[in-house]
């Protein structure tokens, strides 16, 4: 940790994209219908593209000569700064979609706010990503509504997914000194937008936000769930077993 809040912040944004993109990409060839294989690959591609921008920027800010690949493939789990939501396992397709929706509903307003950041580089990356995030949100919102208000089974699966994942949403908009150094007081507006938007959509989807309000945190400061270590072991295998090799 360099103590530079911009570095830490760029890692948080980039690691969210990387870990979610990595999870989503594992569906390639296994989705419920061909159009979903194609759409999920698109989402994963966008997220990996955004990862390259954020982590590339983080490496520059850090100034130790590490590039996006070094940061992605050569850090241990405790050095990752993604929120807990994105590292939750794919589960069934309903869990994957709900995780995506809960992330997109935060990611899009966040990038919109960051596009106005005083830090030019942060603003640039956000500007490049925000259109993709708008498309992701549009898509995941539509599917959550249709499946929530679909058959009994699709409703039950989406409700179960929401019950399991809601507890990880508080961390998205919970702020600390690092976030505030970059985005200032913009976060309170994002929290409000997030809560309003998700409750409106869940209403339409006939889904109910769980009553228990305890929110899990830790990912943003490097304290993750068990799932992350296993995922990194898979993702990093070639770089770890062939140190210094070019690919």
């Amino acid at each position, binding site marked *: 940790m360099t103590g530079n809040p911009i570095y830490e912040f760029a890692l948080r944004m980039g690691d969210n994209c990387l870990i979610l993109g990595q999870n989503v990409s594992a569906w390639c060839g296994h989705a*419920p219908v*061909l*159009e979903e294989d194609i759409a999920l690959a698109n989402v994963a591609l966008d997220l990996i593209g955004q990862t390259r921008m954020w982590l590339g920027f983080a490496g520059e800010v850090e100034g130790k000569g590490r590039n996006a690949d070094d940061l992605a493939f050569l850090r241990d789990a405790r050095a990752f700064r993604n929120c807990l939501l994105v590292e939750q396992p794919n589960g069934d397709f*309903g869990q994957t979609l709900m995780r995506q929706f809960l992330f997109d509903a935060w990611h899009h307003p966040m990038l919109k706010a960051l596009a106005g950041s005083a830090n030019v580089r942060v603003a640039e990356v956000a500007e490049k990503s925000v259109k993709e995030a708008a498309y992701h949100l549009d898509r995941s919102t539509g599917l959550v509504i249709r499946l929530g208000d*679909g*058959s009994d089974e699709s409703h039950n699966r989406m409700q179960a997914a929401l019950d399991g994942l809601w507890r990880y949403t508080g961390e998205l908009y919970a702020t600390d000194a690092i976030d505030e150094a970059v985005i200032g007081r913009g976060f309170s507006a994002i929290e409000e937008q997030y809560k309003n938007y998700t409750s409106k959509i869940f209403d339409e989807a006939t889904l109910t936000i769980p009553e228990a309000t305890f929110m899990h945190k830790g990912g943003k400061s490097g304290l993750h769930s068990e799932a992350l270590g296993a995922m990194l072991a898979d993702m990093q295998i070639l770089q770890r077993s062939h140190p210094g090799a070019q*690919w």
Partner: protein
Amino acid sequence: MYAQEVKSTGKGVKSLDEMEPLERAFQEKVNADIKIEPKDRMPDGYRKTLIRQISQHAHSEIVGQLPEGNWITRAPTLERKAILIAKVQDEAGHGLYLYCAAETLGISRDQMTEQLLSGKAKYSSIFNYPTLTWADIGAIGWLVDGAAIMNQVPLQRCSFGPYSRAMIRVCKEESFHQRQGYDIMMKLCDGTQAQKEMAQDALDRWWWPSLMMFGPSDAQSVHSAQSMAWKIKQDTNDELRQKFVDQTVPQAKYLSLTVPDPDLKWNEEKGGHDFGEVDWAEFFEVVAGNGPCNADRMAARRKAWSDGAWFRDGLMAHAQKKQTRNVAAE
């Protein structure tokens, strides 16, 4: 190749004089290179052959996502990961165009899916081999997509309009795929000793299965003649295989890799390479379902389909509810 086991239904090729008037009119149209479109009159055998060929081709694209998809989560750099995702996505897209092209002949995508999952429809034998190392991703792009292009370039001139147009789009993407595969191989062959060994091992394992992609030798392929008369097929299996070997051998040499065939040598007289005999016994076993990954590939497709039933049903249920509400509101 992607449709290597298509049995056309015609019983030998008739001359124009032997044909009924309608049949003759159709053949003359084909001979004049006029594209056959979905609503045109066509012989039943032509329709059936095309449905089989196009659906096999589509199934190959769909199953073909699996061996490469196996390395998406382990791709060694972010750029390689993005390229591989894009490539696998292209394959899903090719499957989609091809299913649509086959649908114009009067079969639904669900029926074709059913035929794949029940084992009634075939897909290319190549996808029943495992991807064991990262170099296999390079070898697939280089060899498998290279062989696919060899077959699909002539298919752009296929007599059936929708298939021909689908192939034009597919070929553009396939040539990009082949280049990315060769690029992976170049990087490995230029790398550490372990990477070079990985590259050689991948060539050793993928060479012969790639040659099998062109299907049985012409001598054993009794149905080629009718497909060629109908311009569904333009070159024989052996011609394409020869072309592939001649194109690929110098590429292997450039990588300083050794093609695993002791009988391979340049034949000045024929202006091409002589090469050893493919192990056809292995080929027929793989086609019959006994290859190293047939069971896994089919299990993965069946699981995706059955696990996804609630998703598809849920969307249908929502669409019906919406329709009912709209009617009630009117």
